[in-house]
């Protein structure tokens, strides 16, 4: 668990040159451990997708080193790189399945590329479709599947070469919350059962919260913060982190200094309105909604809310324990260092 599988050192990526040069990534240093689920989060244009493509060298870094499973990727020959990519596979936001091939043939595809005998590839592909729960769709074409099913096929395909690392580039961004949850559960399951290291790129906080153990926050091409998910979420130190962690992208300046607040995440329980109402009725505690980014889907609440707690520490503690006792709700205290 503690051994590094991906080490990114002083990575820079610049597009173009001269006056028009765009510094997409600047001095990125990351150390991703074997067997963990590592999240990279940032807003659009932060450089997430470029960063993940620098890991399997779909983008060649301008400077710096990328070491995956002991191999210095930037130093590999073209042929060596193609071999190395079998160990670092990828899934995408738009699934990127071959539309003219059946699901089975899609999963066979990476094995075809490395010359696995057809019968053996077919057997393995059926096993993988079984693992992702789509054995009955082996002969269906991607156009006949739902988004979640397509991503499951893509995951099966990505696992075909027994990779050590699975890169997920906004893999759930095109899916609805329920499907997202099931895909995340699958990724977590595969991580535990197969021991594959998972790198998750996303702009959704909920994705990080759901499955990641550690996270790096990318902002304007630099790593603003990195560390354990709970630490960063409960105590974001940089503006970039606060923008992501606080609902509605609220900046700390909006809140009075010393506000005692709690960040509540709804993971598909009952709707959020009754929580606030029942908090007032059952505990007699009035909380202040500082910000909210919640969606009500089929009567279930998803998203996050930032609540300002009363100044009285007893009342605050009462409210906090009440919120924590609710099903499908997680709450973390938040401190300010404005």
């Amino acid at each position, binding site marked *: 668990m503690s051994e590094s599988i991906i080490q990114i050192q002083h990575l820079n990526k610049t597009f173009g040159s001269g006056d028009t040069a765009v510094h997409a990534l600047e001095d990125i240093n990351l150390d991703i451990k074997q067997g963990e689920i590592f999240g990279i989060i940032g807003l659009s244009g932060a450089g997430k997708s470029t960063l993940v493509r620098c890991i*399997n060298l*779909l983008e060649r870094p301008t400077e710096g080193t990328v070491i995956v499973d002991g191999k210095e990727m930037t130093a590999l020959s073209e042929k060596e*790189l*193609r*071999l*190395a*990519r*079998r160990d670092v*596979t*990828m899934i*995408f936001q*738009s699934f*990127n*399945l*071959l*539309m*003219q*091939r059946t699901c089975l043939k899609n999963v066979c*595809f*990476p094995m*075809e*590329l*490395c010359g696995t005998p057809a019968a053996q590839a077919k057997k393995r592909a059926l096993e993988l479709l079984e693992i992702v729960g789509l054995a009955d769709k082996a002969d269906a*074409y*991607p*156009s*006949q599947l739902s988004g979640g099913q397509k991503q499951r096929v893509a995951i099966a*395909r990505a696992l075909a*070469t027994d990779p050590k690392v699975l*890169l997920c580039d906004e893999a759930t961004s095109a899916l609805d919350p329920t499907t997202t949850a099931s895909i995340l559960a699958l990724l977590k399951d595969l991580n535990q059962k197969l021991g594959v290291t998972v790198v998750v790129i996303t702009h959704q906080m909920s994705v990080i919260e759901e499955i990641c153990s550690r996270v790096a926050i990318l902002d304007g091409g630099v790593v603003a913060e990195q560390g354990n998910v709970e630490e960063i979420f409960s105590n974001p130190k940089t503006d970039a982190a606060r923008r992501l962690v606080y609902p509605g992208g609220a900046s700390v300046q909006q809140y009075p200094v010393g506000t005692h607040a709690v960040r509540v995440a709804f993971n598909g329980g009952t709707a959020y309105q009754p929580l606030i109402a029942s908090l007032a009725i059952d505990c007699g505690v009035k909380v202040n909604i500082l910000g909210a980014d919640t969606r009500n889907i089929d009567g279930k609440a998803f998203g996050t809310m930032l609540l300002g707690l009363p100044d009285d520490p007893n009342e605050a503690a009462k409210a906090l324990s009440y919120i924590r006792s609710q099903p499908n709700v997680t709450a973390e205290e938040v401190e300010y260092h404005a």
Partner: protein
Amino acid sequence: MLDALIQGFSNFFSGAFSTIAVLFTAEFWSKYGPLLLDGTIDTLVMTGISTVFAYLLGLPLGVALILTQPHGIRPNNAIYKVLGWIINVGRSLPFIILMVAIMDFTKLIVGTKIGVRGAIVPLVVSAAPFIARMVETSLSEVDAGVVEAAQSMGASTLQIVWKVYLPEAKPSLVLGGAISIVTILAYTAIAGAIGAGGLGDLAIRYGYQRRYPPMLLVTVIFLIVLVQLIQSVFSHVSARIDKRLDSGHKKGFAPLEMLARFTHTK
């Protein structure tokens, strides 16, 4: 004035009527039938052979354009620009001028400047750049994300061409094939002008030079039927092999369905 107009129209219609009427006489078919059969076969042979060779040149050219374009998987501006320039030059020459201009080259390759064989060389030279652009367009429809996915799995350039670009673009390539064949078919009629044989040759020699309208009419009908058949077959095949569409609503082969509508009795 009005009388003259009416007279003109009636002359035209009676002329058209007698032209059509000739086509229903046994005499016409016994006299010109074998000639028309040979002409049709010549047209099909010229079109078929030229299409095959034009694709042998045009397909790799189209693939090369896609690979070397600025965002391709093997970007190479020099090759991309030079190929693009050559193709544009080839495309900008009208067929009849190209045909005359390369006559010596044609003789060098096939040993003659005229006839079916003499037409094939200029047909290939003229159609290949056109086909290269058609292929480029079809391949550019392939989702860049799918190509990237193949790269992320360690596919080589050749594997991406054979296993991603060509199979994924197949329905579009087939549709492009129909356009290419019909274009070459039209060129064969022009080639007829300088003695290449085929239906175009018959139309010019009998219909135009000898002022024999029934021959002109019958070659036009033959060409229309050929084009319709080619287009229907290729459209049908393209729709059949395309797995992006919901296969539940596939239509049958249009000409056969039309035929069935006439022959079907309750």
